[in-house]
């Protein structure tokens, strides 16, 4: 039976949602074999099994944390050699893409990044990508070697599909050459308690119109009323009102949630590049000429300091 390697993105064994989406996609082309690197495999394995993994190959080595990326490539390569998969799927995180790219070189395979959909094809899996600030969709295929494909969050609804998920150790030798970049220290990102921006189904974002750090509380309040992630435009981040980690746009993150609500964001092309593929777009802006209004399903021309509080109250009332 054709097996598909799926690289597991997790925090100490807590599997992140995009990996579960990957398992769902992997099932379209074969039987998923998950590769779990680092601690927490016992915690992750049942979750991976629930979502289709027939096997979970696990390896934990100090080098994964102590050196940047390359040891993980060694391990994924070992899994590739052990399994001879029909494809290798990796989540499109920054790290995921670098791991996938280096693996592709080592195994002599073509690479497709940032797929938003995956379907089986007669000559190999076909990946759909959204390009040029979502102006075009392309369908592409790897033509040489085992397809290595990275997949963006929100590419597919997660489907439970219980499978064996047998936990097996993966033997890995870390090459000396993989220890070139030492991690001197690591400070984990503080959890905000809100959904992560690139994975969230709903996003509320604030821009220049928000006017200051303290006013971002209003954006957060609306996000919390909806159970959404918080985003920020480049203008807001450059002004120091919100962390760069939440920046949406060409120089920040690209998101394609079910709902993107932009408040005080004019909608310059660099911003649109990061959110144009969102399913439903809503904007609130004082300026009726703001380019963002060209994109909206619903737009409100008005003062966000009036509109948002009223919206929050109404949302809470409706939710009861």
């Amino acid at each position, binding site marked *: 039976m054709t097996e598909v390697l799926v690289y597991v993105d997790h925090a100490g064994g807590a599997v992140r949602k995009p990996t579960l989406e990957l398992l769902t996609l992997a099932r379209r082309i074969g039987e998923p074999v998950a590769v779990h690197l680092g601690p927490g495999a016992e915690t992750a394995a049942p979750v991976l099994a629930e979502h289709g993994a027939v096997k979970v190959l696990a390896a934990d080595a100090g080098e994964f944390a102590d050196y940047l990326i390359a040891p993980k490539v060694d391990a994924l390569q070992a899994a590739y050699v052990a399994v001879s998969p029909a494809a290798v799927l990796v989540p499109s995180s920054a790290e995921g893409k670098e791991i996938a790219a280096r693996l592709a070189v080592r195994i002599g395979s*073509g690479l497709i990044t940032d797929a938003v959909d995956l379907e089986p094809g007669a000559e190999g899996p076909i990946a759909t990508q959204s390009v040029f600030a979502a102006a075009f969709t392309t369908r592409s295929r*790897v033509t040489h070697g085992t397809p290595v494909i990275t997949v963006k969050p929100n590419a597919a609804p997660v489907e439970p599909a219980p499978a064996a998920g047998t936990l097996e150790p993966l033997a890995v030798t870390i090459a000396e050459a993989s220890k070139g970049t030492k991690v001197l220290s690591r400070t984990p990102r503080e959890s905000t308690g809100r959904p992560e921006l690139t994975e969230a189904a709903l996003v509320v974002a604030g821009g220049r119109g928000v006017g200051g750090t303290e006013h971002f509380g209003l954006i957060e309040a609306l996000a919390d009323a909806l159970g959404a992630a918080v985003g920020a435009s480049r203008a807001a981040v450059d002004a120091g009102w919100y962390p760069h980690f939440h920046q949406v746009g060409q120089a920040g993150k*690209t998101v394609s949630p079910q*709902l993107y609500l932009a408040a005080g964001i004019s909608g310059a092309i660099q911003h649109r590049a990061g959110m144009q593929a969102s399913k439903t777009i809503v904007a609130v802006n004082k300026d009726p000429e703001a380019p963002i209004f060209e994109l909206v399903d619903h737009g409100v021309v008005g003062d966000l300091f009036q*509109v948002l509080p009223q919206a929050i109250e109404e949302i809470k009332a*409706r939710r009861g």
Partner: protein
Amino acid sequence: MKYVPDATGDRHFAQDLTVDRGDVDGLLSELDEYAVEQALQIAEAADDAEITVLTVGPADARDALRKALSMGADQAVHVEDDALHGTDALGTSLVLAKALEQVGFDLVVCGMASTDGTMGVLPALLAEHLGVPQVTLLSEVSVADGVVTGRRDGDAATEQLQAQLPAVVSVTDQSGEARYPSFKGIMAAKKKPVTSLNLSDVGIAAHQVGLAGAWTTVESVAERPARTAGTIVTDEGEGGRQLAAFLAGQKFL
């Protein structure tokens, strides 16, 4: 660095489903400006450093090189060959790696991603081909005594990284405002050497690159249908409630 179609212009595909790089306004990819800036700062802090800017691209890519030279880079190398048309990222990385080996380097500085392909994998691919450490996605970088150190603000954590030179580094837009070329810089750039190399100069055969040599193929391209215009209301005291009603109607509540 990469010469890319201007995102504010009309970016589109050619008949052979490659990105049309001929008929469009192009410029130095904005994210590469940060790389040039950091290279300049590293060179300024060092005693005897020289900056070469390198690109693989069509004839017009020269403009990107000129921009970098006017910012202060010392010389430029342009790998240009008709057979490169349609080369994918893996192919491009191979060409760049060969060119880098030829030119020689202690440090390769890249932007975090191009603004057209937006893959963000080239620096990692270069490190793999060249067999040197990758120190990528840095919001801060410095070099001293043959060691490069930097801060990587990743998705899950912030990491302080360190590697011995030679190494490949990439920097983000957080690494520091890129300088504008001065008039003096623009004038000086005209006299700086730009070396042109073709595929055989870098020891690559045509079959390794180009559309035919690519390990991926684009089967089809579709223009996204224009979004149907939505409703736009002016807030006259009910804007917030109308907004909530819309969200409820769309089942977001």
